């Protein structure tokens, strides 16, 4: 079975490099430079498996080296470690297949969202999908329907209506739609935080191979939203809204808790931070109003 050794060039995105023969450098946390001008970090051996993908003996899943990702000193001001860890966990989730999407597809969604911009009023999208194909064209990763959906969620969410959402969900399925929304709702706050705190958005991780897992909450209950929610999910509608896709929803909520209330939501007084609760809620309410969000 072909295999190799995975290396990471420090300061760059990880990539697999098949070196002559099998390099066995297990136990060495740092390798000697193998390319001029660069330092490399050993991540361990892998085996190439039939059908694609890699198998990492002894590991539950391929190592995800946070390394330079969301490095504390990449921000121009101190950011709490638990928030950086949450960002990293979200990036890990992006790099893996989920219930309805491959990692490649999720990362392609992020790319679409990052490059989307609101249209002028006269050029707004119609609330129909009849003109959009759900087939993925050769050389692309997402269908025109998915691209359009991502763009709407990313920059025109306030204009989404039930008629449109129902049409999309009829084609994609509720789990796929919920996960798509979760991708945007997870990455958007992280990107905004980076931009507001003086650094570029984080480069996307390499996708891990694998097919969608088929994960979906069961049973589910109608909460009056466009997609059902997991039955028995405690919390307000905004917390359970995407729970039909359990893992995606938990990743999203992890970001929310880390950046907003933590475990303090039920308390009206927040005395342990730099801002008190009314100050935080003023910023929250103003942001919501600017986005014309009724909820």
């Amino acid at each position: 079975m072909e295999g190799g050794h995975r290396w990471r060039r420090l300061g760059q995105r990880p990539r697999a490099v098949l070196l002559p023969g099998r390099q066995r450098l297990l136990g060495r946390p740092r390798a000697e430079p193998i390319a001029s001008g660069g330092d490399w970090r050993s991540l361990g051996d892998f085996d190439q498996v039939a059908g694609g993908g890699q198998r990492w003996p002894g590991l539950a899943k391929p190592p995800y080296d946070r390394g330079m990702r969301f490095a504390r000193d990449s921000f121009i001001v101190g950011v709490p470690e638990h928030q950086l860890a949450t960002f990293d966990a979200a990036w890990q989730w992006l790099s893996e297949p989920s219930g309805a999407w491959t990692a490649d597809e999720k990362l392609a969604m992020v790319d679409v969202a990052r490059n989307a911009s609101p249209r002028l009023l006269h050029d707004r999208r119609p609330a129909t999908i009849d003109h959009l194909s759900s087939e993925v064209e050769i050389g692309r990763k997402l269908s025109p329907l998915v691209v359009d959906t991502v763009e709407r969620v990313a920059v025109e969410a306030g204009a989404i209506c039930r008629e449109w959402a129902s049409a999309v969900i009829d084609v994609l399925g509720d789990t796929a739609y919920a996960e798509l929304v979760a991708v945007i709702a997870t990455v958007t706050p992280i990107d905004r935080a980076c931009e507001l705190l003086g650094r570029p958005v984080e480069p996307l991780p390499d996708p891990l191979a694998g097919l969608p897992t088929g994960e979906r909450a069961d049973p589910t209950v109608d909460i009056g939203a466009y997609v059902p929610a997991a039955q028995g999910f405690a919390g307000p509608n905004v917390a359970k809204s995407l729970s039909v896709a359990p893992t995606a929803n938990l990743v999203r909520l992890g970001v929310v808790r880390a950046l907003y209330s933590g475990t303090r939501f039920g308390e009206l007084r927040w005395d342990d931070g730099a801002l008190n609760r009314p100050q935080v809620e003023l910023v929250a309410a103003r942001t919501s109003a600017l986005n014309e969000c009724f909820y």
Partner: protein
Amino acid sequence: MLLRASSEELRDDVDTAAVLGSAVESGVSAGDVLEVYASAAHRGEGLSAATAALREAVGDAGWVEAAMTVAVFNGLVRTADASGIPLDEGVVSATEGDRNALGLAEFGGAANSDLSIAGGRSPHPNLFN
């Protein structure tokens, strides 16, 4: 809702009209620089000046918290609007006055809620735990 409730806890007299950017005093400490910062963060204009004023008023830690709040609510509003969730039971009646005063029914997401519901229990206390 939470702005009013948390302000009342501190015995502050808040004017929720400030969230719409009107030229009223919010009643929240450093509310003027926080409101300007949130607006600048959304529009991308005047952000440097707004950030400098905010840091002067609440320090770097306060700036980080404000930035994180702007960031996380950019995710929450997309979640709410894209999923079409209605207002939670109890929130409809608890917020009727503020919603009417602020004209929030003009926002598209209002169509997802039955605003004719009267009465109801208090909002769920553990929203994100």
